[in-house]
């Protein structure tokens, strides 16, 4: 535990609690961050000699607070002596500090720390970057790599985000029950953004981005430990686990994306699925359904099917219908159409899909699904038109390649048709 790598993972573990408390003291993100950095530097010097403290977060908060107070004093040009004596005596007073630390604030500190990152003025990409920097403690370099942008661009993005928050003002009063649940909802949405940023669609990016998925899951578990009885946080955690469990099966040897129904399910992470299923079961007991729980329940039905053909599409159709009522959106309807196609056939699904065209005219998956349904109905020319539109909207080469396979099949069928007919003697 005196090895620097292990110390740094201990510092990371304590980070949300320590940063949350320091933000409450200083009410300024930069001061809190500098204070925490300073405490970490002292920990790196102190812990290898004296061994790690019993409560690393309490140690970091105490040391960070002193160092932050110093910094603030220096800024205001007052005289201040470094509190080295107080710090070096730390081992004796540690038990004491732990008691004096405000245990009741712990939950709200971490929630606030997460919540400042989801300020509505911040665009999604800035929210994610800020959360990874402030809460997770990833370096700018690591975040830049995950976003596939340059380090200086990311540095600027984070600086801009912090400036916006400083101007917007952070709510420091202890939240009431209504505010707390609003904050939780905002934080949950932000964590799901982090996750989706990591859930990339190409193999080249998958390796760089996967840490974002792991981090989103880690933060969701942390949130759930603080708010143990919140079914939507269970749902969110389960949803991410059940989706991430499929990661090892999502790309083939050539780096092409493998669709859910074609994935080798033996590659799915059993451990993540088990944890996800346990959380779905727990959440459902509360009988307070919400969008994350419904989406997790859908993911759970896929996870429970040993083979694609074992999937309970009827139940999935019902769940998408439920999600549509909770969170009406053309994309949710499109997903329901997939289930409708499995249960009631392509014609019924096409009837669900067609009215969405105007709203989803820029959406790759819309034309992919529409083309697929038309193809099943033998309407090849219309299918080809839809597939061409899909290719024009593809976000990645893999998506385009996937659609091209369908077009090739249509072309081959048409050729076979022609050959059969030309084989007939005139």
């Amino acid at each position, binding site marked *: *535990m005196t090895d620097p*790598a292990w110390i740094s*993972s201990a510092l990371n*573990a*304590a980070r949300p609690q320590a940063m949350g408390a320091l933000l409450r003291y200083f009410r300024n993100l930069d001061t809190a961050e500098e204070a925490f950095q300073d405490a970490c530097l002292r920990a790196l010097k102190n812990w290898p000699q004296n061994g790690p403290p019993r409560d690393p977060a309490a140690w970091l908060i105490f040391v960070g607070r002193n160092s932050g107070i110093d910094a603030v004093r220096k800024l205001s040009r007052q005289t201040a002596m470094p509190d080295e004596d107080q710090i070096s005596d730390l081992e004796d007073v540690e038990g004491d500090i732990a008691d004096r630390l405000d245990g009741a604030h712990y939950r709200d500190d971490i929630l606030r720390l997460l919540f400042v990152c989801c300020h509505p003025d911040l665009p999604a990409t800035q929210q994610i970057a800020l959360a990874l920097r402030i809460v997770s403690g990833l370096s700018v370099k690591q975040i830049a790599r995950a976003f596939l942008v340059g380090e200086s661009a990311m540095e600027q993005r984070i600086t801009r985000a912090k400036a916006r928050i400083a101007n917007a003002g952070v709510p420091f009063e202890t939240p009431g029950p209504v505010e707390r649940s609003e904050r939780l909802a905002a934080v949950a949405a932000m964590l799901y953004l982090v996750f989706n940023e990591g859930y990339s669609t190409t193999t080249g990016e998958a390796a760089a981005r996967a840490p974002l998925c*792991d981090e989103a899951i880690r933060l969701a*578990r*942390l949130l759930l430990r603080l708010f143990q009885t919140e079914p939507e946080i269970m749902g969110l955690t389960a949803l991410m686990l059940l989706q991430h469990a499929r990661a090892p099966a999502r790309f083939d040897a050539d780096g092409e994306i493998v669709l859910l129904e074609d994935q080798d399910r033996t590659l799915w992470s059993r451990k993540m699925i*088990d*944890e996800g299923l346990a959380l779905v079961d727990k959440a459902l007991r509360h009988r307070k359904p919400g969008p994350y729980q419904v989406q997790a329940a859908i993911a759970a039905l896929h996870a429970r099917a040993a083979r694609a053909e074992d999937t309970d599409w009827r139940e999935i159709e019902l769940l998408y219908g439920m999600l549509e009522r909770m969170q009406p959106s053309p994309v949710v309807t499109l997903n329901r159409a997939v289930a409708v196609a499995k249960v009631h056939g392509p014609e019924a699904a096409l009837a669900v899909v067609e009215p969405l065209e105007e709203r989803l005219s820029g959406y790759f998956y819309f034309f992919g699904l529409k083309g697929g349904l038309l193809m099943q109905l033998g309407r090849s020319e219309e299918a080809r038109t839809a597939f061409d539109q899909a290719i024009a909207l593809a976000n990645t080469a893999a998506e385009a390649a996937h659609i091209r396979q369908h077009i090739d099949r249509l072309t081959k069928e048409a050729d076979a048709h022609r050959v059969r007919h030309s084989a007939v003697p005139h």
Partner: protein
Amino acid sequence: MLYAILCYASEDVVSAWTKEQDDAVMGKLAAVQEKYAKAGKLGPVARLLPTTAATTLRRVKGEPLVIDGPFAETKEQFLGFYTVDCSDLEEAVQFARELSDVNPSGGSYEIRPVGVLNPVKATI
């Protein structure tokens, strides 16, 4: 005598390990177990999923109440256990010491004699 070696550590700390760090610890712990398994002393071993996946049943005024998560809020959580057949406490402590030497979680091992161990299905 059969001992249960109960592993407690801070879940925050253990979950902050990178996959590489976690794999490294598990590898070293497996090497310790291997030695005892070869000597025919090791029984069932379990690593538990996070406490967030746990549910507690507790009787409150005679009524069974299902609660989310572990009942007690403590700094350290129960993360897994070993069962090991040792001739005396000294040997059980030695086993725990070997585990603890390669586990940087900063947690603790409770060494607890087993009263009843029901046979488990071999297929699990």
